[in-house]
């Protein structure tokens, strides 16, 4: 059982999206494609699976055992899905039918793809779910599952038909640190009994844990290839080195001198909040002084964002109260969002939105160019709409928008979790330096403990129950 790709590339018309590259995979082995968003990792996986969108074609050869996949007619290719080739989709909580019970979506693979009769199919489903600790979740709808449970369910549904080659596309996207190890062990299980694993990720820690062979991709070109242990210790290529350095664990230790804490801008006394019948935190008191960077961390669903919103006055605590320092204008308490495009009105150019802000607060335009310079943003961006600009640039623009109002408190809610490692490596230090320079208190929320440890003066860790559904999911369930 082998997978052999020879000069496999993807073209759209005449421009080449992924340059031809070759790799080999044998039974029991695993290969990880590492690179940033837009590097063409997913396109390679889709080329192998045969699910390239219209207008894109794969070139070169893909030999699976003795069969050449690219040449097969689409009908034949589709017969391999599930039976031979298994694709684990991105964000599995979207890839499950919202109206069908969880167990049923696994049973249908046994029943209709593997071809079992009704009873054996039900029996094998029960056993598969039990093995993945999902027996309690069989009757639930996907909307009621946590991210980790959804990932395991999708895995059970996809591998039920016994496919030997498992392709995992960004398995840890949207999951927090604790879930990452769970996913890695899940993938290794697929590889253990003679299967082959092809993983696509931008997370270096996942690549390091999986081991086996690694291939680093940049802008559709294979930059480096080799054993994970060797490539991820001393990468030969320059891009490999920068990619490694971007991992928060590798960041240099903070060397900022401890500074005298000024008069706090905000105090919280005995804050308590219960959400969905569960107490998130109790009796929490804190004070934020200018120039201080405070981190809040904890597993997903533990109430990090809720605490930040309470402090900013965007919600009412059940117990305790928040007290702001006197004489500070309300618009100097600002917030940065996890998904940058969501914080802008999509229909207007960025320049228009900025002019609105300047006119609203009667600020002179000459404050903008120095900030553009400091945030390394080209003025040409202002003539584009939020949708036509990258996530990194947009986050820096929202930073600019906020700095125009000399904020005293900035609550950054997972500001870089949706961004690539390199962009994150560049933006976060910029954010903390600017906060310190302008004596603005920065409240940083993230589920990545390494990141918080390397950026903040002090940290508040919240405990939490892991079975809470994904925040994104809860919204889906209650949508009218």
């Amino acid at each position: 059982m082998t997978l052999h790709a020879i000069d496999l590339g993807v073209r759209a018309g005449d421009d080449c999206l992924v340059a031809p590259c070759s790799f080999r995979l044998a039974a029991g082995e695993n290969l990880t494609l590492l690179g940033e968003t837009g590097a063409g990792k997913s396109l390679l996986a889709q080329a192998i699976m045969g699910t390239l969108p219209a207008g894109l074609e794969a070139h070169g050869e893909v030999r699976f055992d003795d069969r050449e996949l690219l040449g097969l007619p689409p009908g034949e290719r589709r017969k391999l899905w599930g039976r031979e080739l298994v694709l684990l989709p991105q964000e599995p909580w979207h890839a499950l039918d919202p109206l069908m019970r969880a167990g049923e979506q696994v049973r249908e693979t046994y029943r209709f793809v593997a071809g079992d009769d009704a009873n054996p199919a039900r029996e094998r489903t029960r056993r598969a779910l039990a093995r993945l600790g999902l027996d309690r979740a069989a009757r639930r709808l996907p909307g009621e599952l946590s991210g980790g449970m959804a990932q395991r369910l999708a895995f059970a549904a996809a591998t039920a038909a016994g496919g030997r080659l498992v392709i995992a596309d960004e398995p840890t996207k949207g999951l927090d640190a604790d879930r990452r190890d769970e996913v890695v062990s899940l993938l290794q299980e697929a590889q253990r009994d003679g299967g082959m694993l092809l993983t696509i990720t931008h997370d270096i820690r996942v690549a390091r844990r999986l081991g086996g062979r690694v291939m680093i991709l940049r802008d559709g070109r294979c930059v480096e290839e080799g054993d994970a242990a060797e490539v991820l210790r001393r990468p030969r290529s320059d891009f490999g080195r920068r990619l490694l350095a971007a991992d928060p664990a590798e960041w240099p230790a903070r060397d900022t001198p401890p500074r005298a804490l000024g008069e706090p801008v905000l105090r919280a006394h005995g804050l308590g909040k219960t959400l969905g019948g569960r107490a998130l935190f109790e009796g929490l008191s804190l004070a934020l002084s200018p120039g201080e960077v405070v981190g809040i961390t904890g597993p997903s669903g533990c109430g990090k964002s809720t605490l930040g919103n309470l402090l900013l006055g965007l919600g009412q605590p059940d117990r305790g109260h928040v007290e702001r320092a006197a004489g500070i204008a309300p618009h100097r308490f600002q917030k940065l969002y996890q998904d940058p495009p969501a914080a802008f009105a999509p229909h207007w150019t960025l320049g228009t939105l900025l002019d609105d802000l300047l006119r609203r607060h009667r600020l002179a335009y000459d404050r903008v160019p120095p900030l553009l310079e400091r945030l390394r943003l080209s003025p040409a961006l202002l003539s584009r709409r939020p949708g036509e600009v990258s996530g990194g640039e947009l986050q820096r623009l929202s930073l600019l928008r906020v700095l125009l109002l000399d904020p005293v408190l900035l609550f950054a809610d997972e500001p870089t979790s949706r961004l690539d490692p390199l962009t994150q490596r560049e933006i976060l230090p910029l954010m903390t330096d600017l906060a310190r320079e302008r004596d603005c208190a920065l409240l940083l929320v993230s589920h990545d403990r390494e990141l918080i440890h390397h950026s903040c003066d002090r940290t508040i860790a919240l405990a939490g129950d892991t079975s809470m559904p994904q925040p994104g999911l809860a919204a889906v369930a209650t949508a009218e």
Partner: protein
Amino acid sequence: MNRLTSLLLGRLLQAGLVAWGVGTLTFLLTRALPGDMAYRIAAGRYGYENVDRDAAEAVARELSLGGSPLGDYLYWLGDLARLDLGHSLVSGESVWSEVRHQLGHSLGLALVAVLLALLIGPPLGMLAGLRRDGWLDRANLLGAVLLRSLPSFVIGLLLIMVFSVGLGWFPAAGHGGAAHVWLPALALALGLAAVSTRVARNAMAGVARSPFYAFARTKGLSSWIAFRRHGLRNAGVPVVAYLGVQLVYLIEGVVVVESLFAWPGIGHALVHALVARDVPMVQGTALAMGLLFVALNTLVDLTCLLIDPRRRQA
């Protein structure tokens, strides 16, 4: 199950308000309308040939029009509360028996029409939605726009000419046998289908592009099984939900189709009652149509609950 009880309570409240609304509107009808009511009712009763002053005066005495507006209004609502709808001024029959007779015919026609619309509209729409911007999709759009710009009486006439005069399959008009319901129901159904087919097409196009549909296919399910188990149900929710809003066109269409096909329905009766200012009859038919609408909407809500389990927990 509190979702179900709150839904039913909401619809019951709506039914009450509709009854109150109809009562008030028809009461206004008696008071505000120019043109002598007594003359119109006499014309309705005895045929316009032998309507004259003493006929109109006889009717006026009988109705005892006049009296203080507020007093009459409360008295009027009192009757409505006791569901005593009184007697038709034109035919003298009790309104309740007339409405029950006509409502039965209209309900039959409406249900067959909705059934036909569901058989014609959504399946074609879903086929068009699966292959977006294919030839079927374009034909579906043009067909829907054409049907939406044809008044229902033109559709009705075309159907009679083709199926009754031309092929002789169905009787042209009137009622009596089971065969009489097909052409009027089809005329209504085509109007409804034109709307529901586009809703189904959009829903299906959305579902076909969704990640869970792609995962169902990459899991190995055939296109037919994926459509049957995942496509149909997910696309069905917006179609059924839109059915509730669509009933407005059904009620309007019923009026025209009934008078074209000489079908003794409630829309036809409402028009005659309004023209003849037979106010108790107007109130009875309007009330029946309003409550029919609320009942059909409740049915639609229940089906939505059935199809979409998420709504049950929310």
